[in-house]
């Protein structure tokens, strides 16, 4: 059954000191889809991402990815298997150059022997050159090549966001997880981002999971949406269904007694 789904999560629960951050969460995600996860702040969305990428150990539940159980793997193992992520608050390697941020990510599947690095063998040089070119190409996709030599921390905000996604993509993932990519972007930038994500999905044949508050983006981008509230799945469905689901509107807008005119 796992074969049909790239990612399958069963009965996942996490709690912090008695507070349930995620409770009995389920997901079956077929390949090449874009899933959106929405919900109020503190609903457990980022916790879910952290569990998925190995940064937080779940209390119970199972995560299968590409037919393998990855529930208690280390983050770097999960990354090598093909899940890559961006962070809600940008986590770049600030002092490294933009290009190096991507190269360091590209090299994930390379095995360089220590001695060849010291003696600069021909194969090593070739390999380094290939890495550079690969990273450069990726930067071009994101339009960041003109900043390649700048330190990542000196980039403008929007560029930093895009660099994060570029870095995540450089590991050649099957599943890309993006945490609030449009936070702090203006409508134009958001539109560009939307186009970019669609382009990436096509170009790299990606499956994408997205957390986002910007409804425009979510509704236009996602093929399927899950709504989290208080760590539980409040609703899931197609974008249109979600948009009209009164429960979702209430949960998301916290609007009950002045039942909205919408």
């Amino acid at each position, binding site marked *: 059954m796992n074969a049909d789904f790239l990612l399958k999560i069963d009965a996942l629960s996490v709690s*912090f000191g008695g507070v349930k951050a995620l409770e009995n969460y389920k997901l079956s995600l077929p390949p090449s889809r874009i899933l959106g996860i929405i919900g109020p702040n503190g609903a457990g969305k980022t916790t879910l991402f*952290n569990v998925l990428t190995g*940064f937080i150990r779940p209390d119970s539940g199972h995560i299968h990815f590409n037919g393998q159980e990855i529930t208690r793997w280390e983050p770097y193992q999960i990354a090598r298997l093909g899940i890559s992520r961006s962070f809600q608050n940008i986590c770049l390697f600030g002092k490294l150059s933009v290009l190096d941020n991507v190269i360091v990510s590209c090299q994930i599947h390379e095995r360089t022997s220590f001695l060849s690095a010291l003696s600069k063998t021909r194969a090593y040089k070739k390999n380094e050159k290939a890495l550079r070119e690969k990273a450069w190409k990726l930067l071009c996709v994101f339009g960041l090549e003109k900043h390649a030599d700048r330190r990542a921390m000196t980039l403008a905000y929007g560029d930093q966001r895009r660099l994060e996604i570029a870095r995540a993509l450089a590991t050649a993932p099957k599943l890309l997880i993006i945490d609030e990519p449009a936070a702090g972007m203006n409508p134009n930038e958001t539109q560009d981002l939307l186009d970019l994500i669609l382009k990436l999905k096509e170009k790299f044949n990606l499956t994408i999971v997205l957390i986002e508050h910007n409804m425009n983006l979510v509704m236009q981008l996602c093929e399927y949406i899950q709504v989290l509230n208080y760590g539980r799945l409040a609703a899931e469905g197609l974008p249109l269904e979600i948009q009209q689901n009164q429960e979702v509107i209430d949960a998301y807008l916290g609007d009950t007694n002045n039942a909205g005119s919408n």
Partner: protein
Amino acid sequence: MSHTAYFFQQFINALSLGSIYALVTIGLAMVFSILRLINFAHGDLMMIGSYSILMLWNAGVPVWMAILAGIVLCGIAGVIMERVCYRPLRGSAEMTTLLTSFAVVVLLENGVTLLFGPNTRPFRILNFTSPTFSIDSILISKIDVISVVLTLIILLLTTLFIKKTTIGISMRAVADDLTASHLVGIRLNRVIVSAFFIGSLFAGVAGLLWSARAGKLYPLMGFIPVVKAFVAAVIGGFGSIPGAVVGGYVLGFAEVFLVALLPPELQGYRDAFVFILLIFILLVRPQGILGAKTMQRRI
């Protein structure tokens, strides 16, 4: 000496030694909880306290006056240290301030060596150590009683202070959440200065007891106590005042009983065992014996 008497004598030794460690540790932990600064110069504050007391006494000041004035001077020295050495670095990485405190150690130890000479000086201001009473060949000296009682009194006062006074509660608030403390209008500098002042007063008291116990003082006397106090602080749970006291006693007991129980050829390894204990505790229970388990925010 019977086995029981032997055990109890070592117990008294440990209790007395542990009290002094606890005193040093309280001051260290107080500053750490607020500034996240491991002040390695805390031991040198002890040294400054002892020197002040000795110098005042040599100058003819009555002994109790000299002690009080010396301890207060020690407190002032702590405040000056904060103002001159640590305030310009406020907000720097923990490692930066840690290294700076090492530089302060070099500065103070060499400075005092230049001023007063490198030599050990006798410190017989309070000749506390003569045994006062004995129970079944177990000797208890004045300094044992004074160390334990003083430590408990200071623990009690400190606890009252941080529970009941505005500035005490402010200290806990700052340790808890710096941003929120700013927002409610706590004057951070005032809190930090108070913490340094009080911590340094304790260092002064600890310096007095340490010197009285050894009967001497010298410019480099501060480093060993501060390293031990750090170990004690980690064992007890860094930042927690009762933890500091527990850690001090655990360390005192560990040191005394390691010497008591180890065969002579291994006694020399005592400090190695103490540090292995420290590493072990850090790995098994990083928050220390009494430290609260904080939720680790990883991202």
